[in-house]
């Protein structure tokens, strides 16, 4: 196979393999699958596809144990987002996703692009996003760095969601020193689609066009691989930003354009280009549909000069989507995207080869078998140890504190204090459907498509409970989400989860993960409250110090009569206050 001028053959040394995050055993599998040494483009693709992020190699075994079915579940985990039936021919489509690390490096842009990514996961499936939520964890509030991080993260979440015009209606915030070097930013989007208009990612139809839409591709976020790619480029390090800048305006146009195209009969499959960009979106579409694909990388709209096939395959530029169109629909689709001033390019064709063949100005620069690569994706049964029983907290002296003083301390404590200053930076009213605003147990919005009907949503987790007892803490998070939905009068239907943990290669941390999965499963089964989507973020550690285990739960419920919904506010003097439960 020839090499193009822009990617001179780079010998694949052990160092380059290691820089791509592949172990020796994994690289041996690469050689077996390829039947030869991969070139750099191919190695980059393996590294992305087999990363923890894409392959879920440490968590897969345990995620499979979560309950994911119920009569109202239309699509469980495995697609861009989960889909549930909410009656009246409508579905709710939702998911939560983390953007922890980028938000620590650049709080505003990291959080903003996190919101952008989760919005794309939801509208990709045909849903108009109707609400955003965010679950945040920060370090010690007295640390000035915490202030800087939280103000940047909140401004970034608002900056993106407000501009796109999706109300941010809820969320939660906790503080603990374990998050000092690893804050958590988990963003959730809920969308609504007609049950007969849901779009999936499996490619189909030999000869159909593979189409790229949205923003141009730049050298954004080509991180793990920076060193290797620098070797064949004279560009300075400065040209390789590791944080992406979000463009919510383009995202808004992308939402409107995609939803408009979805109203026609043109799309066979659609997938957003998420964290792993063109590589994973293309691979997933082809692999799910059992197809091969030929991509002409030189046709990808590029933002910068001198970009290489390697960079195009690994770029994490935002606000981009990949679609497979029905034959003959290309011109109509192009006109539609041009109306919205978005890039549109036919970059490839589906084939029956079962291979992904990449060309650059006619020359083949990569050729990989799709199924073997997907099938051989690593899966580890990491050793784990159960979390030892936590010692009971020392409460001595607590009784001596006068209740009024205790109350003051509680109200003033950062984990309990008002979050008004956060949600007031979020447009929680746009779309004109917010019936219960932030500050209550769960947010409630009404649906334009079905008068009288509403959706309730909440995010919940108490990391210190999970730390003390992962099983009970996992259960508690699910139960709290269920209670919050019930408290506003909704029927809880399903959850999405965002599993934030430390280094899974440590048996103690893996034990927290396993315990939390078990607890979540038990609660989901008991409450008939299945998991329909989720995301895992591991390696949240600094200097060997892990975060408190944080399996954030995002719950969604339906209200058949929104008028019956009740809020947290005490309504009138003289009314009785009851305590229920046990």
């Amino acid at each position, binding site marked *: 196979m020839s090499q193009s001028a822009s990617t001179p053959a780079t010998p694949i040394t052990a160092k380059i393999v290691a820089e791509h995050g592949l172990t020796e055993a994994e690289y041996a599998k690469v050689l077996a699958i390829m039947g030869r040494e991969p070139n750099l483009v191919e190695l980059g693709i393996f590294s992305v596809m087999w990363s923890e992020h894409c392959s879920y190699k440490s968590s897969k075994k345990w995620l499979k144990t979560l309950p994911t079915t119920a009569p109202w579940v239309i699509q469980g985990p495995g697609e861009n987002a989960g889909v549930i039936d909410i009656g009246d021919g409508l579905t709710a489509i939702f998911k939560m996703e983390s953007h922890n690390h980028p938000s620590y490096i650049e709080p505003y842009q990291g959080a903003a692009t996190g919101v952008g990514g989760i919005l794309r996961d939801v509208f990709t499936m045909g849903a108009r996003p109707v609400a955003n939520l965010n679950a945040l964890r920060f370090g010690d509030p007295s640390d000035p760095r915490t202030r800087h991080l939280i103000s940047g993260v909140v401004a970034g979440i608002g900056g993106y969601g407000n501009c796109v015009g999706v109300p941010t209606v809820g969320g939660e915030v906790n503080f603990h020193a374990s998050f000092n070097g690893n804050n958590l930013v988990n963003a959730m989007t809920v969308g609504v689609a007609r049950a007969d208009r849901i779009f999936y990612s499996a490619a189909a139809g030999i000869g159909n066009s593979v189409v790229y839409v949205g*923003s141009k591709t*730049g050298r*954004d976020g080509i991180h793990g691989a920076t060193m290797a790619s620098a070797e064949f480029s004279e560009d300075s390090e400065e*040209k390789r*930003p590791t944080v*992406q800048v*979000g463009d919510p305006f383009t995202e808004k146009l992308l939402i409107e354009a995609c939803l408009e195209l979805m109203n026609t009969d043109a799309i066979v499959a659609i997938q957003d280009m998420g964290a792993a960009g063109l590589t994973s979106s293309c691979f997933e579409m082809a692999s799910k549909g059992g197809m091969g694909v030929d991509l002409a990388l030189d046709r990808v709209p590029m933002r910068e000069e001198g970009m290489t096939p390697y960079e195009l395959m690994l770029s994490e530029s935002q606000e981009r989507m990949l679609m497979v169109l029905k034959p003959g629909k290309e011109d109509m689709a192009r006109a539609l995207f041009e109306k919205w*001033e978005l890039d549109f390019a036919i970059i490839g064709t589906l084939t029956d080869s079962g291979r992904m063949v990449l060309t650059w100005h006619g020359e083949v620069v990569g050729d990989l078998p799709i199924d073997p690569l997907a099938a051989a994706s690593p899966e580890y049964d990491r050793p784990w140890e159960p979390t030892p029983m936590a010692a009971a907290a020392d409460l001595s002296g607590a009784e001596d504190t006068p209740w009024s003083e205790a109350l003051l301390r509680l109200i003033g404590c950062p984990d309990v204090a008002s979050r008004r200053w956060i949600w007031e930076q979020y447009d929680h009213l746009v779309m004109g459907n917010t019936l219960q605003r932030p500050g209550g147990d769960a947010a409630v919005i009404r649906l334009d498509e079905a008068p009288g009907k509403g959706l309730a949503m909440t995010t919940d987790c108490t990391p210190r409970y999970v730390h003390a007892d992962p099983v009970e803490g996992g259960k508690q998070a699910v139960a709290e989400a269920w209670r919050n939905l019930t408290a506003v009068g909704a029927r809880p239907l399903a959850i999405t989860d965002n599993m934030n943990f430390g280094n899974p290669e440590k048996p103690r941390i893996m034990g927290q993960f396993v315990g939390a999965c078990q607890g979540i499963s038990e609660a989901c089964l008991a409450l008939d409250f299945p998991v329909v989507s989720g995301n895992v973020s591991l390696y949240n550690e600094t200097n060997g110090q892990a975060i408190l285990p944080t399996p954030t739960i995002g719950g969604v419920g339906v209200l058949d009569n929104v008028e019956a919904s009740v809020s947290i506010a005490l309504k009138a003097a003289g009314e009785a206050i009851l305590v229920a439960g046990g």
Partner: protein
Amino acid sequence: MSKEYPTVKAKVHITLKSGVLDPQGKAIANALAHLGFDGLGEVRQGKVIEIELAETDPAKARDSVDAMCRKLLANTVIENYAIEIA
């Protein structure tokens, strides 16, 4: 604050690193094209922050402004800055 005695004026120019997406610049370029201006290449937007300082020694003033840039004014993950002391 010593509004009466500022003796040095510093200008900090903050620009996005090359390669970082500049949605503002992109939108301005599009708008200018729509208004009929053609033959335009790249458009980028940056900021300038002007600071009055009570420090008389230019070298010290520069050091102080450099510290301000690193601590607050610029985000060196995505931005470059340049200091001008007048």
